[in-house]
């Protein structure tokens, strides 16, 4: 460098500087300037506490909204996924109607189908070699009474054989399941969920309910067992259920109702093979009844249908909700820009001084950008905290698990920093291109 040589040749300077050191440190320039900018930013944020807290509020509200919404949605998703997979991905069903009917046309089409019968279940049990457990179930909704107590909207589930308890993933807490011969006898015996205990037996211990009599649709039943609780989903109890033998169910509700055949495989990997086998069996059995369309005549479904429906029904709602929350972040960004513009105007003199002693445009630009990013990143971090806090309170009130994800925390701080850059850019640019002479005249 021309300059360094020139200076070394002049030993008369008042305060000698190691110019080689100065030149060596030039790559440090950006880092040094950024650190200076950070120092200036924090001290100016400290000096204007009211302004800083207003800016922070703008960002905190936005990030809190986004984080809370995202966290709650994740919790809901998790709850739903857990609920529907309690039967596991090893179970599939064969039924006349699918679990979800999307239109009137479908409803009409499915009603033309033949009922799924005991014989269908027997054929599946006999011919599906990949199937592990095969059972049948039919549901009715009834009012159940005991003495002067009653429980409404109880799911009465007629099942056969008793492996249906395993397929449903329920276990006995007190008493017993009926024996095979009892199951075929058509006797009025039942196994109840804890929801029944709560409603009919004043939350008595499970073993106290065993041996009691309850009335389902007016008929007396003997309680022989109580199930372990399954818990509730979105406030709806999954324990408000009574299991009765299918033979008994048939006596009360007639044989002409369509069944649902439940099939379970030992491992999820075998599901596809078993489904193919069952499909072949059922196609053979329905072969002659194919109507004018190409309907198979039965529905073969896993629990995924619920998850898929849930996913498609809620994804748009999620996008809209997150979008609405994100609007508040945009508002926060506008607040930051506004405050930064005020800050630039107020500190015109300071900018003039800095420029006079050698700050370049990018030094000033960096300084104000860092100031904007510092405040928004801090706001983002606080917002992530309050967002999780809000989600915690809401999840505790509704009753679903809280899923705190590092990704959404990083995203929250990251997005708010980007908001800082975007909204700080224009004020910073205005500061950077101030004329030093004019800026020095400012007060």
């Amino acid at each position, binding site marked *: 460098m021309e300059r360094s040589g020139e200076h070394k040749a002049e030993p*008369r300077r*008042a*305060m000698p500087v190691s110019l080689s050191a*100065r030149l060596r*440190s030039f790559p440090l320039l950006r880092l040094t*300037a950024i650190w200076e900018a950070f120092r200036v930013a924090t001290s100016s944020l400290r000096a204007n506490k009211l302004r800083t807290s207003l800016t922070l509020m703008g960002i905190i509200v936005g990030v809190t909204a986004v984080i809370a919404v995202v966290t709650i949605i994740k919790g809901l998703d998790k709850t739903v996924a857990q609920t529907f997979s309690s039967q596991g991905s090893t179970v599939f069903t064969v039924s006349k109607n699918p679990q979800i009917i999307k239109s009137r046309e479908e409803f009409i089409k499915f009603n033309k189908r033949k009922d799924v019968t005991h014989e269908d279940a027997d054929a599946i049990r006999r011919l599906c070699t990949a199937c592990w457990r095969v059972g049948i179930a039919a549901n009715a909704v009834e009012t159940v009474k005991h003495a002067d107590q009653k429980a409404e909207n109880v799911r009465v589930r007629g099942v056969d054989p008793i492996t249906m308890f395993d397929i449903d993933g329920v276990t006995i807490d007190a008493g017993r399941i009926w024996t095979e011969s009892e199951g075929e006898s058509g006797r009025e015996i039942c196994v109840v969920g804890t929801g029944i205990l709560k409603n009919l037996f004043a939350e008595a211990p499970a073993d106290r309910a065993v041996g009691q009599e309850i009335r389902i649709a007016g008929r007396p039943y003997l309680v022989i067992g109580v199930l372990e609780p399954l818990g509730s989903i979105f406030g709806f109890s999954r324990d408000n259920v009574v299991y009765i033998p299918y033979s008994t169910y048939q006596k009360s509700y007639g044989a002409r109702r369509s069944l649902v055949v439940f099939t379970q495989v030992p491992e999820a990997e075998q599901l596809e093979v078993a489904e193919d086998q069952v499909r072949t069996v059922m196609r053979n059995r329905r072969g002659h009844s194919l109507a004018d369309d190409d309907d198979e005549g039965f529905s073969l479904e896993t629990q995924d249908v619920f998850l898929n429906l849930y996913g498609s029904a809620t994804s748009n709602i999620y996008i809209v909700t997150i979008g609405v929350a994100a609007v508040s972040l945009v508002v926060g960004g506008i607040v930051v820009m506004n405050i930064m513009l005020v800050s630039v105007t107020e500190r015109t003199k300071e900018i003039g*001084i800095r420029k*006079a002693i050698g700050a370049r445009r990018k030094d000033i630009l960096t300084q104000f950008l860092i100031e904007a990013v510092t405040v928004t990143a801090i706001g983002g971090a606080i917002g992530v905290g309050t967002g999780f806090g809000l989600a915690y309170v809401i999840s505790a009130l509704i009753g679903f698990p809280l899923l705190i994800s590092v990704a959404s925390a990083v995203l929250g701080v990251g997005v708010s920093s980007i908001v800082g850059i975007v909204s700080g850019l224009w004020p910073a640019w205005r500061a950077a291109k101030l004329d030093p002479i004019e800026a020095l005249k400012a007060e």
Partner: protein
Amino acid sequence: MSSNVTLTSPVENVIQAKTEVNGHDPKSLISMRNIWKTYQMGTEKVHALHGVSFDIPRGEYIAIIGPSGSGKSTLMNLIGCLDTPSQGEYWLNGKNVSEMDDDELARIRNQEVGFVFQTFNLLARATALHNVELPLIYGGVGSAQRHDMAKKALAAVDLAERMTHRPNELSGGQRQRVAIARALVNNPSILLADEPTGALDTHTSMEIMDLFERLHSEGNTIIVVTHEHDIAARAHRVVSIRDGNIEKDERIK
């Protein structure tokens, strides 16, 4: 005063070979050739400087004096590289700064010019030490060395005891000495003072002027812009500006 100061007569610089290159005098630290500064005021063109030419050799102590509106401030802004001339050439320490862009000028101000202002222009929230470090920060000097240099500069203006004070905890004279330390810390080619005693009482003014004298005796090139004759009288050469022209240029010491 710090002991690491060496004295050399400015005469040595004058003795160096005199060669004219591009019309500027290479022995001069500052060489202004036919400098014009024109402002557009509405439809009218106002000439703040009418083709000013002069040279300042290294180590000179010069006062630029003139009433307000004389073009004195415009000249100071040009010398300090805060602005560029509309016409003419300005060479500072061998560099033609008249054609430079904003960021190049910022570099020159950082490396070649030490400003001392009438109102001190210190950063209110920063300590004396940090204020003095500021030019080094923009010059990219690493923090350890920066600290060291800033401390030495403050010691040189007898403020070693006041380094952690903020401007509002210092007297006017002390503030101006912080500003002088800041101006000198980057070892600039020129010390450019704009009414340096304008905000100070007589006694403190004399102290500051004594300090300038000492800095000059240590080899610094000092340019004081003022409208006060007794301040100008402390310099060794006085350039009087009137109506955008040099009216008088006389050596008084």
